[in-house]
């Protein structure tokens, strides 16, 4: 493998990892703050991709899809928290697993009713459609680079909000010691609602940005759900920095696994997970006890 194709694979891996980070950071935030395991997280990734397809087909503008998709996901997140999720706080994990499983069945069937079972593709925005010629035979699509830049910007925004703002302080304090934070007068019913909605938005955002480079199809939620779970297990629950490390590891491992072991590429990430479990059962940046 020469240097250029190595670099291309690395770039692919990083790009994949960055999208994974978007989705998984939403998952890990919801775990960390709400203490709720949300198996329906992948369904919101699929929702984002389908919204991207639907709005782009209606308006012809990918940007409208980006803005509209985020807005719809945010409202859906607020509604779901209000109707279902808030009844799960403090319930055992089993109830959370079952409720989110029921939610998956409902969301998937709604997807079926609204958008059908067909496979769709989404055009990338006009000025991002070209590709950069690297050598005679190799080129790299501009849109993939744009995904990297966009995801890095979102990641930077997440870190800034969590580390530098008052809201971020509440979120960090809530993840650290919920009861003490509540005793200090923080209203968790409000915090929970917005954290859940932001988590949903992050999953949907992942779906929207990958829609132009991958197809939009029923069942796309499942693989993303498993991968973002593996990312959270690798990084440690509730740790956004851990999710970033885990996502990049998985992205790069998957990308190179596909090159070196095409038949067993899906195995590389599980071997990685098994290794981390043997080494640090609570994740790379996880605290000792949950």
């Amino acid at each position: 493998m020469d240097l250029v194709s190595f670099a291309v694979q690395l770039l692919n891996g990083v790009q994949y990892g960055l999208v994974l980070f978007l989705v998984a950071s939403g998952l890990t935030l919801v775990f960390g703050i709400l203490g709720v395991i949300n198996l329906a997280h992948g369904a919101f990734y699929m929702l984002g991709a389908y919204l991207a397809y639907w709005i782009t087909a209606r308006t012809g503008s990918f940007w409208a899809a980006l803005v509209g998709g985020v807005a719809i996901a945010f409202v859906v997140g607020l509604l779901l928290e209000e109707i279902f999720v808030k009844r799960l706080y403090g319930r055992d994990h089993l109830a959370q697993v079952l409720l989110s499983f029921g939610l998956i069945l409902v969301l998937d069937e709604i997807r079926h009713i609204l958008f059908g079972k067909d496979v769709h593709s989404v055009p990338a925005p006009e000025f991002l459609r070209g590709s950069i010629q690297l050598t005679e035979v190799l080129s790299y699509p501009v849109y993939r680079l744009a995904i990297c830049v966009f995801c890095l910007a979102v990641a930077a925004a997440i870190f800034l909000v969590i580390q530098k703002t008052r809201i971020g302080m509440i979120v960090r304090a809530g993840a650290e010691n919920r009861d003490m934070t509540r005793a200090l007068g923080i209203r968790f019913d409000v915090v929970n609602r917005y954290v859940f909605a932001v988590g949903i938005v992050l999953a949907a955002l992942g779906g929207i940005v990958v829609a132009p480079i991958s197809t939009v199809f029923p069942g796309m939620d499942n693989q993303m759900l498993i991968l973002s779970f593996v990312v959270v297990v690798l990084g440690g629950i509730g740790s956004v920095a851990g999710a970033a490390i885990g996502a990049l590891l998985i992205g790069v491992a998957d990308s190179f696994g596909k090159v070196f072991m095409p038949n067993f590429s899906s195995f590389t990430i599980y071997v990685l997970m098994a290794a981390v479990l043997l080494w640090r059962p609570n994740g790379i940046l996880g605290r000792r006890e949950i």
Partner: protein
Amino acid sequence: MARGALTSRLVAVALVAVAVALPFFAATYYLQLASKVLLMGLLAMALNLVVGFGGLVSLCHAAFFGLAGYVLALTSPPYEAASIWITLPAAVGAAALAALVIGALSLRTRGIYFIMVTLAFGEMLFFFFHDTRVAGGSDGTFIYFKPLVAIGSLPLLDLEKARTFYWVVLGLTLAGIALLVVIVRSPFGHALAASRVNERRARSLGFPIYRIRLAAFVISGALAGLSGYFAAAQFGYVAPQMLGWHVSATALVMVVLGGMRTVTGPLLGAAILMGLEEFLRASTEHWKLLEGLIIIGLVLAFPDGVRQLFDMALKPHAFPALRRMRRPAVPREAGNA
């Protein structure tokens, strides 16, 4: 209390008698449905050993279930029936081995982590059969003949007959129930329950928690494999979806529906859920929407399963809110706290 125990024993005997006699009055379609219910019930009861009694929410039991089915498909010769004496131990053994490896890794974690790790490892097996061409890839593969039950060249049972197949499955389910009851009542079962109720205390009393949980996980995985072997034989077909986590989650719904604190509860849950599915499927194309809503409603309304409904009807005195509704303002007798 004694009268209650006698009643429930009589009900159990009556139920078994009806189950045994079912082939004499039910049509083949319902017989096959009953076999399916028993097999899913066996899977759910196996799962409940770790979920209900061990307190470990596993999302990878479909992987053991499906793996056993795949072992049957892969060890069957192409144009003749496979011998049950070879394929059944191989299938159950493979499921137990997978449970040993996955359990050994997953049981290093707790709570949410355990759920996620079992989910991920279960999906690893799903993607193994989905992505490689081992047995038809994502299309799955057919099993043309049901396994052969014979000694030498003397056939003992003909599993191709729906009636015989049903009786065999019924026998296995009853044997599974007996095994689980023995396990739950044994010192091992008590230690497992202790690890659920208070892990630290059980540990400080000297119980080897990790090994107890691993043993329960392996037994449960092997039973799930037993169920999967016969499920694959019944459908005559295996596909990766059989290992997918949606099957695990469905089994969990059965467990919760039927009640987690009894051995046979999940079987009841399987009967209710599959009956419901059958009904919904016949009435609407979008039955999954309704099923999802019903699951959500049940979780929110009855945290302890539908048994709670029966309990409310049979033992109203155990539910203070109901008692207040039924007998308002009865003064408590002294000493009857």
